[in-house]
């Protein structure tokens, strides 16, 4: 077999990283996109992600079936999201501040309830080996893709179609764009927002399940490093379009894999700085794409985020 050059190794490692690391970004950003389309913002998705990871791992360990774990993560996400949304619909309660509070409470609860599951190993979701055609081990392992990644792609497609062509999708968009118009149509604004936030948080919970059941594939307290919060920035970058969320998530996955990939080809200088790559990338993209004084295309009018 021909020896693979450093560049090929690097590219394969980045591709593998993009496919692996992007899935939680994908789910959280799709969930956040759904929530924001209804006019609410949920910073609590960071807490949902961590809690979902814990719930998925614990339930997978207890039942022996990782898919039940994924369901548990989605369900717990929906509950947390519904609580967040219900509290935010009270007068004078700020959704940004409440999101931070929910994030703290969610991570605290996850660490508390998940303590007994740090040691035992739960059954994980088996990856789909798409690299069977190749005999290069790097490519084979790079193309071991989690089934949740494909689920994410399907969800992105369904959301995109739903927002465009279904009654539910249009209702969510109206509520998010103009509360006045929604009121005039007799829509129950708060109820729709609570449902949209619960559904969005359920998706974020599945993103958490990926962290503990696929990659890195264990439960511990350092599992999430702000993916749930970066999703908020990612949605701005993706212009509230579910399909663009996929591209954005892949880009972030690749950025996150930059440090470890460089390490595999022997570049270790600045290792910790490469950890910052996804955050810097988010910041640069936001600074470049947000134009002062102009409403972004696709931005829900009722959103308090970009104001």
């Amino acid at each position: 077999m021909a020896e693979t050059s450093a560049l090929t190794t690097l590219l394969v490692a980045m591709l593998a990283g993009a496919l692996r690391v992007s899935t939680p970004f994908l789910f959280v950003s799709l969930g956040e996109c759904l929530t924001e389309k209804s006019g609410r913002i949920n910073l609590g998705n960071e807490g949902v992600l961590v809690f979902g990871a814990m719930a998925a791992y614990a339930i997978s360990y207890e039942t022996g079936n990782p898919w039940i774990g994924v369901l548990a993560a989605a369900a717990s996400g929906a509950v947390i999201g519904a609580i967040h949304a219900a509290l935010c619909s009270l007068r004078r309660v700020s959704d940004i501040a409440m999101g931070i509070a929910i994030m703290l409470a969610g991570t605290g609860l996850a660490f508390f309830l998940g303590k007994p599951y740090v040691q035992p190993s739960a059954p994980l979701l088996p990856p789909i080996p798409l690299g069977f055609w190749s005999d290069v081990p790097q490519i084979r392992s790079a193309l071991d893709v989690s089934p949740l990644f494909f689920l994410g792609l399907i969800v992105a497609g369904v959301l995109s179609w739903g927002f465009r062509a279904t009654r539910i999708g249009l209702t969510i968009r109206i509520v998010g764009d103009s509360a006045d118009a929604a009121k005039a149509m007799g829509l129950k604004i708060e109820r729709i927002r609570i449902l949209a936030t619960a559904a969005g948080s359920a998706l974020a919970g599945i993103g958490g399940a990926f962290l503990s059941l696929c990659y890195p594939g264990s439960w511990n307290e350092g599992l999430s490093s702000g993916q749930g919060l970066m999703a908020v920035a990612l949605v701005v970058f993706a212009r509230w379009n579910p399909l663009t969320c996929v591209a954005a998530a892949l880009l972030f996955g690749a950025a996150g894999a930059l440090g470890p990939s460089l390490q595999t080809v022997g570049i270790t200088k600045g290792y910790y700085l490469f950890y910052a790559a996804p955050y810097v990338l988010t910041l640069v993209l936001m600074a470049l794409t947000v134009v002062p004084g102009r409403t972004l295309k696709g931005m829900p009018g009722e959103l308090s985020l970009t104001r």
Partner: protein
Amino acid sequence: MTAVPLDADRTDRPALPVSQPPADRTYPLRRALEAVLVPLAALLLAALGFCVFLLWLGKSPETFFSLLWRGAFGSWFSLQNTLVKASPLLLTALCVALPAQLGLVVIGGEGAVVLGGLAAAVAALPFVGLPAPIAWIAMAVAGMAAGGLWIGLTGWFRAARGLNETIVSLLLSYVAIALFNQLVEGPLRDPASLNKPSTYPIGEALALPTLFGSDLHPGLVVGVLACLAFWFLIYRTSFGFAARVTGGNIRAAEVQGLPVARLIILACVMGGACAGLAGSIQVAAVEGSANASLIAGYGYAGILIAFLARHNPLAIPPMAVLLGGISAGGGLIQRRMGLPDATVVVLQGLIFVAILTGETLYGRFAWFGPRAK
């Protein structure tokens, strides 16, 4: 500086909980009472909720709260422990409370603490062997500059580019921690620090003294003085007035010709300087060098305290003592009741949610004054 595209056409945005109750001078005393009673009720509710949680786990709430009290305020030893834990929180809470006067939610104080501590540890090295006060000033200035720059950058992104300050400050906080790790593991590392990478120690001679033979250090005094100073700045100066007008209604502030962008950046720089100072005091008084112990969540606890205090600097010290007490008591609870260390975080999270939910109660009861809309 370009115009600030803030909430130009939005009037129904939920207001940030800023310390002043709805403008009304009819019943100042009753309004003041409302500002005390509502958070107290929320605290009580959070404690009750936590009791339910403990009962569900089969643990005794009575033991929990009595141990918490003993570990936090029960003896001179535990009180000192509480005050030492509260010291940095006074300053990191200001990092949230100052920008909040302008309606900004800045949650990246952790990054400013970490970089402030690192800058202080580096700034102290040329002064080894010189009189300590000179080194202390250098450390304080370096810490404040690093922290001010970091959160000021957030303010700049907000003012000049219209980015959401919550997200930007958080992203910058992660960048700061990566930068810190890179520098402490790399060029600034003391080769003698084997297991725990640290910068070169500042040495006994430059360490801040403890107060009156106790464990307390000057950080407590500095923090309280800073809270007093910023209370004066916010409520008794024209700068503070301009900031509060901007926080109340940005459109009105722009129409009045207030320098909104400059106010935003200035408030962020001042807040960041406080957090940076907190980091440098931790290095000078507690750690002796910059190492991973600085990444202990001081910045995040500050967010909680600032919201508990409704961004009023005078309410920050009692809230910081409360939070410091909860974390000081946490250790005792962990040992005696066999509960994980995250128990305290659950309690904090519940308190946070309850306090924010309590916002909805302000202006609801006619007794406290005319109903707000």
